[in-house]
């Protein structure tokens, strides 16, 4: 009897989760987060800070007339963007339209990172936000 119940849990519960079109839990898998953290430290931390604290005075243009890298933690505005927008910015890069230079101040990573790796960075960033911010961002991502 116990064996049948075990088999039911093993096969039926994941099948229901797949049929519902979403994972059983909305929390990112720890492996994804760990990978995202490692990629963040390798590719992003040099500009956005090891603790994702961003540049000092990131709300004002620097001496070159460029907007400095913002924080990605709860003090920044990353949590205000949908998953799709965050993915686009990491993949394609970003230049603030009022920068005085023409270069992409946020470089494009689509040639360096796979889609799965970019997604894992986004999952890591989500661990830096408050519950309220996560909820706001989840709504923006719908």
């Amino acid at each position, binding site marked *: 009897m116990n064996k049948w119940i075990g088999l039911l849990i093993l096969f039926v519960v994941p099948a229901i989760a797949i049929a519902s079109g979403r994972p059983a839990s909305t929390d990112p898998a720890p492996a994804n987060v760990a990978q995202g953290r490692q990629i963040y430290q390798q590719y992003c931390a040099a500009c956005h800070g090891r603790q994702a604290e961003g540049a000092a005075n990131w709300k*004002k243009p620097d001496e070159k007339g460029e907007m400095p890298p913002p924080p990605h933690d709860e003090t920044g*505005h990353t949590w205000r*963007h949908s998953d799709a927008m965050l993915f686009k*910015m990491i993949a394609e890069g970003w230049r603030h*339209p*009022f920068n005085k230079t023409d270069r992409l101040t946020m470089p494009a990573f689509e040639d360096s990172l796979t889609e799965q790796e970019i997604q894992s960075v986004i999952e890591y960033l989500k661990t830096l936000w408050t519950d309220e911010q996560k909820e706001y961002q989840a709504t923006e991502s719908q």
Partner: protein
Amino acid sequence: MNAIVFRLKSALLRFFLITLAVVLPTLAHAQSTGDSQSVKALTSNPSGALVVLRASGLFAIGGGTSTEIPLPTSDAGAQPTSLAKGADGSIYLAGPGLGVWRYNSATNSWQALNDTLPDLGVTAMATHATQAGTLYAYLGEDGMFRSRDGGAEWVKVDGGPREPVQAFLHSDMPGSMESGWLFAGTTRGVARSMDCFCFWGDAGDLRGTVSAISYDPAAPENVYAVVEGQLHHSNDGGETWANVKAPGTVTALTFSPVHGFVTAVEGGNLFAHGDVGEWTPVYE
């Protein structure tokens, strides 16, 4: 001799008093008429008529005629101060004590959109340039609220700029991380944010209390702001500003599909801005 001087003085005094009695009421009436005609906000409706919020009421001006639109029934003390046109052409009215209302031109009636706002203290509102259901309301210390379903549900999205917002605008100027830009006229100047509410920064160095703000939908980098009655124009999305000669002290602005750029000046007259910078009266 003294008697002559006395009579002369008496005659002069009588003349002065009679003059005062005649002129003062006329001046007071003129002042009162000017006040009642003063324009607090401007927009246009889908047929191209200007919608004019005067101290004396709300009017649609088109084809040389003016038609009064009855204001929504509200509590005493409500002050309609803001007008906006939605992306679908709907007209919105807002103000302290009034909240936000939408006009139904088919039934000539107003619908209150205040069920989920924390209170009615809306001091400025804006409509999204391209998304018909997206509205923005500024409630002073309560912050900024956004509705994405035409006012059924309002959600607090931000605290707003540091200084109080007097005028509010959404623009579809390119370059935003999301769908456009927000411009807020504050007591310090013009503040600007992408419509993700990422952060508010100064739009250039225009300083002073901004009472009205508008932009050219056909060329969105062109933004206009009124600071203490003076009209200013930016052709680079708010980075730099230049003074524009206006036909008077400006109280309200809008872009109309029929008239183009229209200003209202003190006293209530409306003027359309021509291609070579001339101002032409818009007659009722």
